């Protein structure tokens, strides 16, 4: 029997859950790191959701051992079941077993491609039915307490034209934080056009600037009530439609997860055991800078470089923005391999593979380049030799023409009329 998820416990006794959304590369992990370094947010548990087969985001979040974090691969928004409820239940169980792991708030960082409707319908009472004890425990212990959307000031205008998920993420938010407003390549320095566009999609959310002097990360994630009715008719319509779609017969969870993001969205994971030469990394970054465009939705990862293998580089690329690589003082975990994740839009597998191979096959490319240079030099030499010979022939012909007629052999004059 299905029961509707309800929350009977008073708000003060439940643990607030705030969703942090935002399109790929909007700066969600950076916000999480800001939050975790703030002592006021010490008792925060994190749920990180990543799109793809290899988790990178959890490595990029600085977490001390007292904090709890659950990582889910795939996409919370796609799961036909209740993945987010499973994650919350895991947190609840971990804290129940070990009091040192107790927490008083949860932040759920979604993948950048997340459609918020299925996720919100799992968290807000009255939408998705509860399956079993686990869902009832979650409904009893947790409450939705805010939806923050990170908006990249440099790319969102273009992203909104291509990706409906980006529009939905903004529309669902009760707080929107503009990121990368300090970057010089921002074509709208005062962000007036972007703010107007956001207002059109979401007239009531607070819009904050992460680089504003008054910005306070703790206030951004301060628990409050999240009432879907306050978010507008569009949100209620999407949630109602989500309920209808969820009730339709579906395939397995895994199939549903794979289906939601379309064939045009690809994800490629890359791991490499051998440290990369600094020159090869530089070559790779050069290629990236030349080719990065809207098809490269996101590249992120850690690179082990041979000059100091204990200090990896963190790479971040968002569409056409190749951010300068940052060197960490140490690896965030025991795993010392180079790991990169690419999320692409309309970019074929071969091109993505070729792009990644420029880092590891640089020696091969060097050899090919050397061979090409040798062949080119040989060709040039041949051309030059040919030129010399032609000049010699021409000079010889010129000398012959300049010779007096009587010196021309009779056989050569016989065909002259």
């Amino acid at each position, binding site marked *: 029997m299905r029961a509707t998820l309800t929350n009977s416990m008073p708000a003060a006794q439940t643990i607030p859950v705030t969703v942090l959304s935002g399109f790929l590369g909007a700066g969600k992990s950076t916000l999480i790191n800001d939050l975790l370094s703030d002592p006021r947010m010490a008792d925060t548990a994190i749920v990180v959701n990543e799109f793809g087969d290899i988790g990178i985001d959890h490595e990029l979040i600085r977490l001390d051992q007292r904090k709890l974090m659950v990582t889910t691969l795939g996409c919370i928004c796609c799961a036909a079941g209740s993945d987010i409820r499973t994650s919350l239940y895991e947190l609840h169980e971990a804290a129940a077993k070990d009091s040192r792991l107790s927490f008083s708030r949860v932040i759920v960082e979604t993948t950048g491609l997340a459609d918020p409707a299925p996720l919100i319908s799992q968290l807000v009472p009255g939408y998705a039915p509860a399956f079993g004890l686990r869902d009832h425990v979650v409904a009893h212990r947790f409450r939705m307490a805010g939806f923050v959307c990170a908006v990249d000031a440099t790319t969102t205008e273009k992203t909104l034209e291509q990706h409906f998920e980006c529009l939905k993420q903004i529309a669902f938010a009760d707080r929107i934080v503009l990121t990368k407003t300090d970057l010089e390549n921002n074509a709208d320095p005062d962000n007036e056009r972007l703010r107007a566009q956001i207002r059109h999609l979401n007239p009531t959310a607070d819009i904050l600037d992460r680089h504003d002097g008054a910005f306070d990360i703790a206030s951004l994630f301060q628990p409050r009530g999240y009432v879907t009715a306050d978010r507008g*008719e569009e949100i209620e319509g999407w949630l109602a439609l989500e309920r209808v779609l969820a009730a339709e017969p579906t395939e397995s969870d895994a*199939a549903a997860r794979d289906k939601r993001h379309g064939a045009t969205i690809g994800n490629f994971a890359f791991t490499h055991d051998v440290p990369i030469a600094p020159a090869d990394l530089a070559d790779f970054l050069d290629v990236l800078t030349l080719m990065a465009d809207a098809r490269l939705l996101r590249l992120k990862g850690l690179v082990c470089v041979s000059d100091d293998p204990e200090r990896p580089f963190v790479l971040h690329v968002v569409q056409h923005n190749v951010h300068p690589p940052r060197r960490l003082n140490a690896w965030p975990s025991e795993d010392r391999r180079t790991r990169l994740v690419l999320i692409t839009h309309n970019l074929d597998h071969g091109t993505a593979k070729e792009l990644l191979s420029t880092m590891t096959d640089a020696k091969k490319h060097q050899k090919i380049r050397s061979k090409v240079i040798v062949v080119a030099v040989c060709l040039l030499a041949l051309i030059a030799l040919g030129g010399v010979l032609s000049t010699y022939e021409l000079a010889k012909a010129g000398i012959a023409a300049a010779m007096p007629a009587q010196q021309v052999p009779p056989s050569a004059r016989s065909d002259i009329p």
Partner: protein
Amino acid sequence: MNGFVNPLARRRVPGYPEAIDRLKAVTREQLHLANDIVISVTELSCRDPGCPDVETIVAILTVDKKPRMIRFHKRIIEIDGPELAAALHEVES
């Protein structure tokens, strides 16, 4: 505030919000729907082999009635008014 308006600045391309408003208006007009009836327009992606990449759903959600849904195998911004009107007539007939 900077009063300078850059004449070379990129103009915003009419996109999803305008297309959604248009599809809702056509639906309301064609089916003579009252303003309190919710019309929801969403775009979903699909990776199923043999299935189109993108699906748009226009749903008419009426209390105590089975939802009516029209599906297009294209993006929201690619659906024009006459195409939606024809699909609505087909569903209603």
